[in-house]
């Protein structure tokens, strides 16, 4: 009779310290949480400190009941189309109400962006780079693996939300100067929970889609759903036709949850949570049941062969950048179309708000408020700067991918001078910004045609976003050459956000004029109205061309990264 090999009693597995299981290399959860630490700190502390800073600025700038009433009257006079992407104005004469109206609406977008990036990549990104093969080969069932990664991210979001809760509660206690300024713990918690829920819902889409389509498409779909929801919700009052679509989004569901203004709608937040849990469950099940790392291709139209770019380094770089530029350009174009097409509605709403009209006429003397250009200058350009800045970051990131992905090892083994590679890629990046700008201008042109207004001036004015985008690309190229291509896109994204923050925070904080002038966006004049400031254009040209030249020069002198 054949015997079995004798079983040697094995020593039990080594005990892993609890701390290491919770944070460190003792478990999938601990490792994922550790990997999330920087993002959690950046989001939690960044938003928390910003909320504290602007709270302090609000109470010092509007220190009297009269000044608060002025603010409330001003906000009440703002027609719906001008409120746009700001929050619903409720109790804006209080610290909490104003905080939520002016700043609170944007912060869930930051949380959403973080969650989308993290949850699209936590499994799919790891599958793509191959490390998941090792992780999944371990003695951990796939469901548990996905669950631990997911719970780690949720924990990181909860920690960041807790920091925001503490910041708001602290600001509401420390800076409350007028009646109604106090922000209770329940209000602060209401905001933090809402922010976390919205962020995780967006991340939930990415997590559910990623096992089917992979990281990139999952991120794109989740981003499109999130930003479309945000814009639809923001403009549904101004354009009633958007309301049915806005009601399909969680921004729309939770429109009545304005906790810092003491309005709560916990049911809607609960609904978001339920949907999020369902999305998480789909993601876990899909990961457990599908082949590891196997994704289906999203049927997208292929670029014509001539645009794929195999003739040389410039055309190749442009071939890589073009899909990114088209995506950003179409998005910006749609936004421009939406706003330019609302020109007449804007004029009508201004007629119904004479008080606000007088304020605008005082701030912008000589501005013809009955034109599409006025609306675009007031709304499109500011948001367009942020979008084109992020577009510039992704375009620079695509340019940089030759080196960051390791392709440059082979590319530069060809008889291709380093400077030529850098300049060709830079040229392609500028061409990408041109594509974004032209599509944005096209959207504005169509919108203006629909309105029956002057087309040429706003279309030419829209080119200002191209000047800003080119300047940022120039900065990215310089950083890529001087420091490393891996740093280029993050620096451009940070610069975009910093410029935007200077624009919105510096005035209420009363920061010195010199700091406010650091924002390039403050030097363009009112281009959509035909009033250009040469300083901004010259600075942009200098940054664009100088950055490209400096980057190319520096790139010839440093080692290639691997």
């Amino acid at each position, binding site marked *: 009779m054949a015997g079995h090999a004798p079983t040697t009693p094995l020593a039990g597995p080594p005990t892993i310290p609890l701390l290491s299981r919770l944070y460190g290399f003792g478990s999938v959860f601990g490792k994922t949480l550790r990997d999330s630490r920087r993002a959690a700190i950046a989001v939690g502390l960044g938003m928390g400190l910003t909320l504290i800073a602007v709270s302090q600025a609000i109470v010092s700038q509007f220190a009297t009941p009269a000044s608060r009433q002025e603010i409330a009257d001003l906000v009440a006079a703002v027609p719906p189309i001008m409120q746009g992407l700001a929050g619903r104005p409720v109790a804006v004469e209080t610290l909490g109400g104003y905080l939520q109206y002016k700043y609170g609406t944007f912060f869930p977008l930051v949380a959403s962006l973080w969650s989308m990036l993290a949850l699209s990549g936590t499994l799919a990104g790891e599958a793509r780079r191959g490390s998941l093969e090792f992780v999944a080969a371990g003695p951990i069932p796939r469901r548990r693996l996905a669950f631990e990664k997911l719970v780690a991210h949720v924990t990181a979001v909860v920690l960041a939300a807790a920091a925001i809760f503490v910041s708001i509660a602290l600001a509401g206690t420390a800076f409350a100067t007028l009646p109604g300024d106090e922000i209770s713990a329940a209000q602060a918690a209401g905001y933090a929970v809402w922010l976390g829920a919205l962020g995780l819902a967006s991340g939930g889409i990415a997590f559910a889609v990623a096992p089917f389509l992979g990281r990139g498409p999952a991120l794109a779909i989740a981003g499109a759903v999130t930003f479309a929801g945000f814009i639809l919700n923001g403009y549904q009052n101004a354009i009633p036709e958007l309301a049915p679509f806005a009601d399909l989004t969680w921004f729309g569901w939770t429109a009545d949850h304005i906790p810092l203004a003491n309005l709560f709608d916990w049911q809607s937040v609960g609904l978001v949570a339920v949907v999020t849990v369902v999305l998480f469950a789909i993601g876990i099940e899909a990961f457990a049941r599908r082949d590891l790392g196997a994704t289906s291709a999203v049927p997208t139209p292929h670029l014509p062969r001539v645009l*794929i*770019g*195999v*003739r*040389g*380094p410039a055309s*190749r770089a442009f071939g*890589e950048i073009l899909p990114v530029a088209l995506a950003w350009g179409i998005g910006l174009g749609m936004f421009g179309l939406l706003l330019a097409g609302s020109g007449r509605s804007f004029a009508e709403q201004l007629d119904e708000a004479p008080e606000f009209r007088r304020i605008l006429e005082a701030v912008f003397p000589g501005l013809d408020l009955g034109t599409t250009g006025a609306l675009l200058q007031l709304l499109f350009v500011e948001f367009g700067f942020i979008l084109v800045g992020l577009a510039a970051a992704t375009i620079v990131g695509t340019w940089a991918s030759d080196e960051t*992905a*390791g*392709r440059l*090892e*082979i*590319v*530069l*083994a*060809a*008889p*291709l*001078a*380093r400077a030529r590679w850098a300049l060709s890629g830079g040229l392609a990046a500028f061409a990408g910004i041109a594509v974004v700008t032209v599509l944005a201008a096209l959207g504005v042109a169509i919108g203006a045609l629909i309105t029956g207004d002057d087309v040429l001036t706003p279309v030419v004015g829209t080119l200002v976003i191209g000047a800003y985008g080119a300047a940022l690309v120039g900065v990215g190229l310089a950083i890529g050459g001087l420091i490393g291509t891996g740093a280029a896109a993050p620096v451009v994204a940070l610069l975009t956000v910093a410029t935007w923050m200077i624009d919105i925070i510096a005035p209420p904080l009363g920061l010195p004029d010199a700091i406010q002038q650091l924002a390039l966006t403050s030097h363009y004049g009112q281009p959509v109205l035909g009033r250009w400031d040469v300083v901004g254009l010259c600075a942009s040209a200098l940054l664009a061309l100088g950055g490209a030249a400096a980057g190319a020069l520096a790139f010839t002198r440093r*080692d*290639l990264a*691997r």
Partner: protein
Amino acid sequence: MTAVIEIEGLTKTYGSHRGVIDIDLVVEEGEAFGFLGPNGAGKTTTIRVLLDHIRPTHGRARIFGIETTTDPVAIHRRIGYLPGEFVLYDKLTGGQTIEYFAHLRGGVDARYRAQLVERLDVDPSRRFKEYSKGNKQKIGLIIALQHRPDLLILDEPTSGLDPLVQQTFYEIIREAKAEGRTVFLSSHILSEVEKTCDRVAIVREGRLVRVGRTEDLRDLAHHHVELRFASAVPRAELEAIPGVSELAIVDRTATMRVSGPIADLVRVAARHELVDFVSREPSLEETFLAEYGRMPGTVA
């Protein structure tokens, strides 16, 4: 003969980390030169300096008489390079990728390129990201070979290739050599270098420890053999076999190190009733450690 690659006192450090230290090396025109060493020895660092992808900390390298940092483009015009690890364009097909690199170089013989595609058995119509590791490697090889470069610099070229394709690759290398072209091949596989190279340099911990003819490598080649006999081990007979060393006997099992041909040992063992015969070729790492110990050696 003309020197194609000349490396003089090359040192490359990454901050406090060692890359390579004081390398001196000459590769002559028309020879196939193997650059052997364990992982992390400094092979890829040396190659990247040759390509001017990184700059020397000290010393210099010349290819075709041109200093690598002076005019790398002139050098690149005449070389074909396959990195040890690489990524190409996910969205392009293999064919488009090859075409792109052909355009970057110019002067590629389309017929030869088509031959390479056929010989290496790769489907050029698939997107790069859909390829297996081996097929990606084939695309890299075609990119390196398609313009018939004067100097081929290949870093771990057979990584991921199946044995049949490896044979095809060896044939291509022999053809290149027969046409008078120079091959600089980095590898950690001893047998691969033996099959393709005339001379070999061995690098370990950033230093050259040996440079010589490939035949000399055979001194390094040895086997670990384990023989299990049905009766007592014929110790005296085994000890008398040339090349046998480190003989150890436990009960009826003998283990030993055999340098050179193993035929004598097989003949002796066959005279006895054998229960088992296990022969294992040690890894290069083991060979290096056995041969050179831990301390860097000198160039032979």
